[in-house]
């Protein structure tokens, strides 16, 4: 519709000329190789101008058959695949796996190992959220600054992990029954030092991003989901908490020794991208709180493996669905034993998989540029989506 006003002596009233435009929907393919997709992910968006009318995601480019491979190895051998599902939270994924095997086989683990596992897993949550802040900052326009600032802290945590287990990404440090070896002597002091640095780093990120006008304008009310919608899509983790549901497996179905610590669950209100960012930021502060308590309570010495471990694990026939709170949501291992030394069935419940399935309702009706922000706020790890 074009409006034109003609002034002069001929016409004194505005003339409205109406025209019919025929618009054609356009398909835009994003990915599989695209910086905004955070991995090998493809989506085909149907846009009318700049408004997204349909979104079809395609996944599976990284499918390696980790479940089938885990079923073909013995219970201890498949641990390495857990590092390769969620490579940003490898300790958390390993922890779920070893917990599942231990519960299936009825193995009790020493308290010191439990503390070390919890500390490393919480550090890994910090590491993963730092990575999110950096990558998400890049998505909304902080090219470089957010990434370098957060990676500075992430490097410190990775240095700590390297000192503990000798690797920076693929740790393979947890064992069925405990740990591979004792952490180094100055583990507690180093952890306290890293925590001091990380706390400052969280403050830096907060100052850089939270109140920035451009950041808020790009994130507010983008990708909003109601609580019912999020639950229906199986969304868990910070995304669900941002929608106002205080569901955290560390509290709702407490595992390990989380009942010994005091902390709070941050909850959002609107369920939009900005709330997801705020929830993750506050979760990092709460992780620091948990870590300080755990480091103070941790036994300074003691065994890290049970005195007697079977040479070959043959759990009684049975099944378990072990689930824990990973940085991205509920990570579950459904493991079925048939009495032999190989699991009959291993199913990895990936939080990213279900969080990503809720992408379509988030981006429909929004702008094309907001689709990228919504995708970034899911904090996807495509290796974990595809397994």
């Amino acid at each position, binding site marked *: 519709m074009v409006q034109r006003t003609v002034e002069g002596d001929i016409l004194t009233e505005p003339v409205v000329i109406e025209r019919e435009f025929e618009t054609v929907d356009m398909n835009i393919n994003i990915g599989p190789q695209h910086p905004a997709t955070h991995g090998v992910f493809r989506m085909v968006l149907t846009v009318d101008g700049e408004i997204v009318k349909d979104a079809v995601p395609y*996944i*599976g480019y990284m*499918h390696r*058959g980790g*479940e*089938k*491979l885990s079923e*073909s190895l013995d219970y201890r051998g498949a641990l390495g695949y857990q590092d390769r599902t969620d490579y940003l939270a490898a300790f958390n994924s390993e922890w779920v796996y070893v917990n599942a095997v231990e*519960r*299936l086989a*009825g193995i*009790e*683990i*020493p*308290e010191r190992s*439990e503390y070390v596992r919890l500390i490393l897993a919480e550090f890994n949550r910090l590491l993963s959220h730092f990575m999110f802040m950096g990558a998400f900052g890049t998505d909304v326009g902080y090219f470089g600054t957010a990434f370098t600032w957060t990676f500075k802290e992430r490097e410190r945590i990775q240095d700590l992990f390297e000192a503990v287990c000798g690797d920076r990404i693929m740790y393979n440090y947890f064992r069925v029954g405990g740990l591979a070896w004792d952490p180094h002597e100055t583990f507690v002091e180093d952890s306290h030092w890293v925590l001091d640095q990380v706390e400052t780093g969280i403050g830096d990120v907060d100052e850089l991003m939270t109140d920035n006008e451009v950041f808020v304008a790009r994130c507010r009310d983008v990708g909003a989901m109601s609580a*019912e*919608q999020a*639950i*229906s*899509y*199986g969304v*868990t983790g910070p995304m669900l908490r941002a929608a106002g*549901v205080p*569901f955290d497996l560390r509290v*709702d*179905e407490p595992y*390990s*020794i989380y009942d010994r610590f005091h902390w709070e669950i941050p909850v959002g209100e609107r369920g939009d991208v900005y709330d997801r960012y705020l929830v993750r930021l506050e979760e990092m502060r709460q992780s620091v709180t948990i870590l300080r308590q755990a480091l103070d309570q941790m036994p300074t010495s*003691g*065994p890290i493996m049970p005195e007697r471990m079977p040479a070959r694990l043959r759990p*009684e*026939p*049975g*099944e*378990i*669905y*072990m*689930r824990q709170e990973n940085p991205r949501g*509920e990570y*579950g291992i*459904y493991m*079925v034993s048939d009495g032999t030394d190989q699991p*009959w*069935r291993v*199913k990895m*419940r990936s939080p990213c*998989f*279900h969080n990503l*399935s*809720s992408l379509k309702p988030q981006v429909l009706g929004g702008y094309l540029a907001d689709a990228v922000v919504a995708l970034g706020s899911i904090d996807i790890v495509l290796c974990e989506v*595809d*397994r």
Partner: protein
Amino acid sequence: MTSRRTPATTEPERSEPAPGSIADVYREVFPLIQFEAALTKGGDVALTIPVEAIHDVLERGRDEARLQMNLLRNQTAVDWEERGLEIVYHLYSIPLRQAVTIKSWLPSDGAVVESVTDVYAMADWAERECREMFGIEFIGHPDPRNLLLDEDLDIHPLRKSHPLAPIEVEQGVDVQYFTKQHPPPEPEQAAEDSAQPAAAPTRKRAEDMTEEERAERRAEQAERVTRARELAAVRRAERLAGAPPAGGPRQEGAAPPTPAPSAPATAEAPAAASSPSARAATDDRPPAPPAPELPSIPDAEDDPEGRAAAQAERVRLGRELAAARRAQLRGQ
């Protein structure tokens, strides 16, 4: 050293859950459905129901005030081979903080379940994955395409009958990945095909080929690989024997790399012996010293001392050879 485990691990399998558990609530809500309850090792209640009741149990379980199972957290299946397939739904109630596992048995062939995508949106992707991995058909699914696997693949990898690929290759099993079985060509058609000129001017793309052409090309490629391997084996044998390499022109373009300064000990030594001789074809350097006769290594059980001595001897010979080669490369 204290334990953190709940006593759930000591419960025997298939034990009936305690009275007052969620199994009783389900039995009250659904009086007409037969629930077979068991306690899993994780302490959850697992209810096995007839397959026809799945949609009803999940939908009313979500809306019923005493259950409120609003989160379908996981959905998968287990292949029990001759016992059939077991489909598993892990449900959780966020308001009431209670978990339950709903299971059902399906036949291995022609497994059909009613889709629950209208109850839980999460089931959309979960059922697509389950369909492609196990071959279970979900009636009423809005978009039953492959999700993780390639779009054209019609295999079910998580079935126990589907072996791992390396095993298949080792066993020499014909890996028929595409189940779109085309019938064998008609005799007339085959005659026409053979009458046509054999060499096509342009190379056809794989998508445009028929199944027979594809198989033909596969066979052709496999034969080429086999021939190349045989040729390589012959060349290797010739080099090991110290004979001049066959097909001299091949050596000119690709001269083998210079041996590393460190000694290539033991078994590596004879293979590396070809390097100087190959260079000799292009350079006018003196020929390489011949590889020495290496002592064989006896088994550790038969003769442990002799084994150690033989290994040490081989290492020494390898080092000598390497030193000689270094000297030769320097042109001395």
